[in-house]
């Protein structure tokens, strides 16, 4: 089972960079490290349970279902706002959160296109919802939704690189049990 999931992750990250290039314009999206991790390791990866993070959450709907979370540290979120020319400060207001939601939806779209073509399924994203708070409060939200279906998530470390900007963020893909079977089937055929 793990073999199929790891293969899925590998193919996903190989292709997502190309799709992201089309949506980012002059910036490059690099995927540095991809792994399958237990849900409760997320806060540690983000820098600790009380680390302040911006989390943009979207549901994957259609023939393949799950959720996608893009998580930025406060510092990365501020760099992202500067990168898209939407502010240069130290405070993230409601208006700025909405800008981050918007670019996150674009970035998530690159993942979605890749998944759709890999799985040969018709899928789409829900409107984004966001929170700006402690890393652990993000995890308990994910656990409430998915703890009965899975205790693991796909974790991808990303970097947007453009001129002097280097913006790091995490993408977490959470699948439900039906989608897990689909991945297994699709990757099993590919191996």
């Amino acid at each position, binding site marked *: 089972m793990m073999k199929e999931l790891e293969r899925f992750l590998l193919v996903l990250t190989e292709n997502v960079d190309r799709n992201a290039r089309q949506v980012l314009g002059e910036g490059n999206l690099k995927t540095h490290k991809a792994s399958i991790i237990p849900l409760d390791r997320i806060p540690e990866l983000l820098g600790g349970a*009380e680390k302040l993070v911006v989390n943009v*959450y979207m549901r994957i709907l259609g023939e393949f279902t799950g959720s996608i979370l893009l998580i930025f540290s406060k510092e990365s979120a501020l760099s992202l706002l500067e990168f898209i020319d939407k502010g240069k400060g130290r405070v993230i207001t409601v208006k700025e959160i909405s800008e981050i939601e918007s670019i996150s939806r674009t970035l998530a779209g690159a993942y979605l296109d890749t998944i759709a073509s890999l799985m040969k399924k018709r899928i789409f994203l829900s409107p984004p919802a966001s*929170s700006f708070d402690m890393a*652990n*409060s*993000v995890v308990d939200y994910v656990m*409430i939704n998915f*703890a009965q279906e899975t205790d693991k998530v796909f974790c991808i470390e990303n970097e947007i690189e453009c001129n002097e900007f280097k913006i790091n963020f995490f993408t977490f893909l959470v699948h439900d049990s039906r989608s897990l079977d689909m991945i297994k089937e699709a990757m099993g055929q590919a191996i």
Partner: protein
Amino acid sequence: MSKLVKVGIADMRVAKSPDVLISYGLGSCIGISLYDARSKIGGLAHILLPKIENTKNKENPRKFADSSIKLMIKEMVARGAERARLVAKIAGGAHMFSLSNHIASYVGDRNIEAVKTTLRDEGIPLIAEDTGGNMGRTMRLETETGNVIIKTLIKGDLERSVSYLVTEPKPSNSLRIFSDVLSNDVKGLCFTRMPMEHFSSRLDLSKVRLYWLSRHSKSENSIHPKDLPKMLLMVKQFSKENENGIIFLEGIDYLIFQNGYKSIIKFIQALNDQVMFSNSRMIVSLSEGIVEKQELAMLEREMKVIVNDAVVYRI
């Protein structure tokens, strides 16, 4: 020496004085503390879902409100606590995202309800709660005193109708937070002893009415330190005119020197009353060591305390 006992997600721990139980970053989950003041035995649970009976996977009873509370009572009694003396405090159950039609958008409320029902069924009085809202909370139970301390992070704005106390050597952290709140399209009213020039590089002065505390200045932007009723009236007026304002009070040591200690404590309390009945918030910057321990404790009971980038308060 006290030991810090961490309580993870879907976990429950029991400890005895002087140990401290802590659960980090409660979102929609609930933190439940039970405490017996005589034996100084406490328990803390971090529950994820309302009821064990509604689920297929019953492997971890610490995950659910009902089963976790029952288990906690059992463990506390086994360690020497008296069941009849147990009291409960709860925190969490926030709406972290504004999503409709999604399980976690209402599970926080269902968790709160399940916790209250179980406590009622078990005959344990709920003596304090800090639930709902949209912020993550760290919950800490000190078994020596039974105090439950909540910590939330400052994200640029401050909760309305609340006063905040910042004890600091110089008014730098408080001024930074005041400035951050102003950047959310908020108007400010500031009473200070610092020279006006100090603010020009730190604040958007178009958003702030600044008044300098001075006995001698005749400027329209100055106010006599003994004119406490006028300041109180200005705060009242400002809160009325600005639905969403912030008040910053600095120079407490100077005000104490001019008015005496007790008058200023009463003055801060009166300002706090004004804020509580309005939509404004207030930051009071206090120099370290200027107020006696007993009075500081009293102010801390009335106001929320800011430590670095977090708000800390007792429930």
